[in-house]
């Protein structure tokens, strides 16, 4: 258990490596699913192709969509895409970055399924057994078989127990032929995918590196901001509930008109602390307004008002004060760390 906890901590410390971990797990799950799946070729002329190609392509589609569903950044992307502009402009480059990184990760499990399927060979054997070149591999002139009859016989190649065309074409020859082609396709597919991945990864620093750094930073920022907002709201809800209940008990005490009122459980300083945690939002209407405002009009990405705290209680204007005095002070603050 301790080992698992450590592995979890290690993966979670870096958000990207956590996503990579999920990716790897899905790839392994995909290979395991294929191994556990009981392939069952129908061995009938037209059904073979449909079944074989269906098993080759439908599960990857499902795995791709599952990859998106399991990635909890999808809702973040949708939120960022659909929110009203408010005081903070939207950057399409950030949205593109988020979408691309999610799509890349979601593509791994389907690619693993298709590679494993092709390298195993059963799907291609089932799908294309009727297209085996009999003139090259077998005796075409065996009997005057109609085309339909021949296809019916060839369709039974994947099912060894009921195959009856040993004189037409030996089943081992056909199986070897189709499996060889399937494995060749499989390795070519693997090579193509790795080459694509390599090109995508290596060409990026050659173009748009500065824009990439920007998009990466802001997409992390959006994710962290969302999480912190949820945490802040949870804490706020907790304090709200505490103060609400406390006030209710006090009101009950007063109503019942006791001789000497029961002291509240918490000392006054603690009660004050809880109220402070409310950050001034103390009723339902204001809270609703806050949540609505968070969605409709996200605050601008500008914290200058923090450093020049003025006590006039201004309501979040976006222009910083005294633009001339700002740069110098920032340089000092920045370089003093260096």
């Amino acid at each position: 258990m301790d080992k698992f906890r450590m592995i979890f901590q290690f993966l979670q410390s870096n958000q990207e490596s956590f996503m990579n971990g999920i990716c790897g797990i899905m790839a392994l799950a995909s290979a395991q699913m294929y191994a556990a799946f009981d392939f069952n070729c129908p061995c009938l002329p037209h059904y073979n192709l449909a079944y074989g190609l269906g098993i080759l392509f439908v599960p990857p589609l499902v795995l791709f969509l599952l990859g998106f569903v399991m990635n909890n950044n999808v809702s973040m992307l949708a939120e960022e895409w659909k929110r009203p502009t408010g005081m903070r402009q939207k950057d399409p480059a950030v949205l593109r970055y988020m979408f691309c990184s999610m799509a890349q990760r979601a593509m791994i499990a389907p690619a693993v399924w298709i590679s494993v399927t092709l390298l195993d060979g059963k799907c291609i054997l089932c799908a294309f057994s009727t297209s085996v070149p009999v003139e090259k591999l077998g005796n075409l002139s065996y009997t005057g078989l109609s085309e339909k009859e021949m296809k019916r016989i060839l369709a039974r190649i994947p099912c060894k127990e009921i195959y009856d065309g040993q004189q037409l074409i030996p089943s081992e020859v056909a199986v070897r032929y189709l499996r060889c082609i399937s494995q060749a396709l499989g390795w070519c597919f693997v090579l193509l995918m790795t080459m694509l991945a390599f090109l995508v990864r290596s060409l990026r620093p050659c173009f748009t590196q500065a824009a990439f750094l920007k998009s990466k930073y802001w997409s992390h920022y959006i994710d962290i901001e969302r999480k912190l907002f949820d945490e802040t709201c949870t804490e706020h809800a907790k304090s709200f509930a505490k103060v609400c209940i406390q006030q209710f008990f006090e009101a009950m005490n007063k109503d019942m008109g006791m001789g000497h009122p029961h002291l509240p459980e918490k000392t006054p300083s603690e009660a004050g602390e809880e109220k402070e945690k409310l950050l001034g939002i103390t009723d339902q209407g204001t809270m609703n307004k806050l949540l609505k405002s968070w969605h409709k009009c996200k605050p601008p990405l500008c914290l200058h008002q923090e450093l020049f705290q003025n006590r006039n209680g201004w309501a979040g204007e976006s222009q910083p004060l005294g633009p001339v005095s700002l740069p110098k002070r920032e340089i000092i603050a920045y370089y003093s760390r260096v």
Partner: protein
Amino acid sequence: MDRFRMIFQYFQSNSESVMNGICGLLALASVKIYTSFDFNCPCLPKYNTAYGMGIMFVPPIALFLCGLIVNRQSVVMLEEWKRPTGGRKKDLAIIRYMCSSIIQRAMVAPIVWIIVSLLDGKCFICAFSGSIDPEKFAGFANLTQMQTQLLLSKVPCKEDELMRNNTSRKAVSRYLRCWSQALGWSILLLLIVVAFLARWLRPCFNQAAFVQTRYWSNYIDMEQKIFEETCCEHARDFANKCILHFFESMRTEIKLRRFNMPRGEEEGEGEADHLRGITDQEQVNKLLKTWYSGKPPLDVSQTIPRQPSGKEGACTSVPWGDTVNNRWAAAQKANVSRQTDV
């Protein structure tokens, strides 16, 4: 558990050993994929060679590319190669060192695949069964050309009806396997000798320059990681402040007593430290762009004030290895400039 934790920490701390670990994992994965792969020689005249050679060489290429992709240092090296010069000159020796170490590590898994497949022999037998001299083997001597080709191409398939009871098949198979294993062991021996010589003879040539390039390549790697971590920390504090400010601005719209402004100010000071003065979107964008287009010089001895307008080209670009001399020169310059500024 303690040992496990120590191993994790050790691997995380030194990125070279992380890379070595990944390289080893990839080599093991290569062996595992080979053993679980169901080799299926087509036993047809022209297809055999294509299949055999394909299985011997295509997976190694894919494994090599995998090795390059999985290695974080390859991206770091490309970034270092392609970045604008800015305040820091580029040293080609470092890029060459990083490139060679990346390629060496990426080559391990493909070589393991090739050697395992040669020592196993199936690929070789499949590919070259049609190319042997039929005169040497009794069963294939007195046949027409086409028949010989057909029979020879069926040698790898033991279960084939033509080959089931054929003793010459075993002879051919043993012969090819022997060649395959000899080739495999020779390649292994050659590679090990080359690796041994390279490692042993390296200190004889230019050891000082080598130590320097190794240091700076580690430095670039560390710097990149720490920059990313710092950006993450910054984003976290930025988000924190943004949200708190949002709550406060909501508060000021309804009239309430200000009770936590003093506390907020202290916190503001502490958090502003973390923010290092970068407090809005434009500044963050500018910081990231400048990090890419003009990396700072490698000199942390004193704070050399930058030109406020950020003229990257005008910065004195300090080359990598020459820090001692340049530190002295920069110290002189900084003293002069500090005096004039104050």
